[in-house]
């Protein structure tokens, strides 16, 4: 059940310039899954709206959520100034995450670009856990491809616990020079399914790649949001078919997504 609740900051540190790693204690953590997000409210009331931030890790046993976010404006700048013990209001858990049942027995490529990398960690972790519970034939192969700006490869060590990690960097300082698609080409990576989160040009390239390879790509979209619960119709994406809820070619990213099958959306 979604709710607005208070969250206590358990820890916060900077992972790279402008990138912060925050653990929050909140009772909604038990409901959180890979690909979902929460709304985080600034305490400064001149900035009213909840900031949608994806879940990097969820630890139900500790009622804790890990958020790794980039400072992009006033709200996230405020969050970055908080320390252990400070409190924030959060709204969640929001959206539909990745459907792990669709990934059983497949070679799954988890692709993250920049601040789209954090949700890939929880996804890798959940796939890794699912693999323990299923038959050999249903185990997924976890292939992780992540793209950074430079050598500040945040979350790389965490990701390596769950699968083989390929890296691309824009400046060529680590791994393949370029983006995740360059890394896929250089390393000849083959997959049966893709799960991705990252900037729109990357998601467009992945949608095209998946269509050429005839494999499903589950992509996580981003848009400016107000309510986060499907009421305001602020965050829509164009859909190929008429959407079941809106009855026009628009789906709500916050509630019908943020994860969509790439072929279903016009991006």
């Amino acid at each position, binding site marked *: 059940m979604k709710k607005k609740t208070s969250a206590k900051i358990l820890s916060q540190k900077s992972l790279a310039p402008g990138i912060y790693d925050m653990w929050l204690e909140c009772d909604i953590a038990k409901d959180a899954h890979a690909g979902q997000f929460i709304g985080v409210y600034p305490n400064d*009331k001149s900035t*009213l709206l909840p900031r949608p931030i994806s879940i990097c890790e969820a630890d139900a046993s500790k009622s804790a959520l890990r958020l790794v976010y980039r400072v992009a404006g006033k709200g996230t700048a405020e969050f970055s100034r908080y320390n252990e013990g400070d409190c924030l209001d959060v709204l969640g858990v929001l959206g539909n995450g990745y459907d792990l049942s669709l990934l059983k027995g497949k070679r799954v490529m988890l692709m993250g670009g920049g601040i789209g990398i954090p949700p890939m960690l929880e996804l890798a972790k959940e796939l890794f856990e699912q693999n323990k519970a299923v038959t050999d034939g249903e185990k997924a192969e976890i292939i992780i491809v992540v793209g950074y700006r430079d050598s500040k490869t945040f979350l790389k060590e965490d990701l390596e616990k769950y699968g083989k990690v390929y890296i691309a960097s824009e400046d060529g300082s680590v791994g393949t020079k370029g983006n995740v698609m360059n890394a896929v080409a250089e390393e000849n990576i083959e997959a049966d399914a893709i799960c991705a989160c990252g900037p729109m040009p990357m998601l467009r390239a992945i949608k095209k790649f998946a269509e050429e390879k005839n494999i499903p790509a589950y992509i996580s979209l981003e848009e400016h949001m107000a309510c986060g619960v499907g*009421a305001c119709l602020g965050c829509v994406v164009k859909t190929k078919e008429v959407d079941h809820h809106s009855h026009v070619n628009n789906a709500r990213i916050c509630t019908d997504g943020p994860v969509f099958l790439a072929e279903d959306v016009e991006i």
Partner: protein
Amino acid sequence: MRTEIEIAGVKWKNPVTVGSGTFGSGMEYDEFVDLNKLGAVTSKGVANIPWPGNPTPRVTEVYGGMLNAIGLQNPGIDVFCERDLKFLESYDTKVIVNVCGKSIQDYVDVVERLSDEKRVDMLEINVSCPNVKEGAIAFGQKAEALTEITKEIKKHAKQPVIMKLSPNVTDIAEMARAAEAAGADAISLINTITGMKIDINRRTFALANKTGGMSGPAIKPVAVRMVYQAAQAVKIPIIGMGGIATAEDALEFILAGATAVSVGAANFVNPYATLQVIEGIEDYMRRNNVEDIKDLIGAVR
């Protein structure tokens, strides 16, 4: 202590409803709010056929508020009746359907379609959305146009008609009087105030539509002033709105002359805002020994 109010013969259990477009048809907020506790649910604007709305970005934050340019995306009246009205059937609250259109005939089509719907208690006519190219605000910025559409809708409407007024006018009192003279049963105000935000780093407009309607706490003083001016000008009941986030805000509108109030953008900030406003009004009445909420309407001295 009595919190009931009455607008055009329709009795609400308390004076609190929601701003159209901020609450869907209640479905999305059902998880947060017991809809039975609301005076009324006001639905998102609905047209005769589905509307796709505007391109994104459709929303952006501004100091103390937000801009939106959704463009009245809606599934059309048929789906609305089958799904949204059906959903509201089991709730003990009044239902106000917000109606939009591109031409007078569009509005009339929706109003007629709703005339047999038992679940619809009132109609709110959106002649003030600033985000669509045709219709809507075009009928709400000139007194003559407002008079014409109000008269036409009143000819066809079975339920009481609330005309929702735009703040983007020179003289709100003139518009309120025009609506009243044309037969409106009530007026609601204010809709959003047209605004603009520019992203200086990208040198682009923050909204794809360039302009958007501003809502949120920052617009409240403008809204209170306009409700007061409208209340001085007409005798029909007023539903006041614009930046209401707390009971204190709501009480300002009631004292300025509003019979009822709507919580709008505050739902996005605090999904429990409506219930907290209702409880806060009751607290205020207890603290100030107010027996009947009607004693507060227009009671500013």
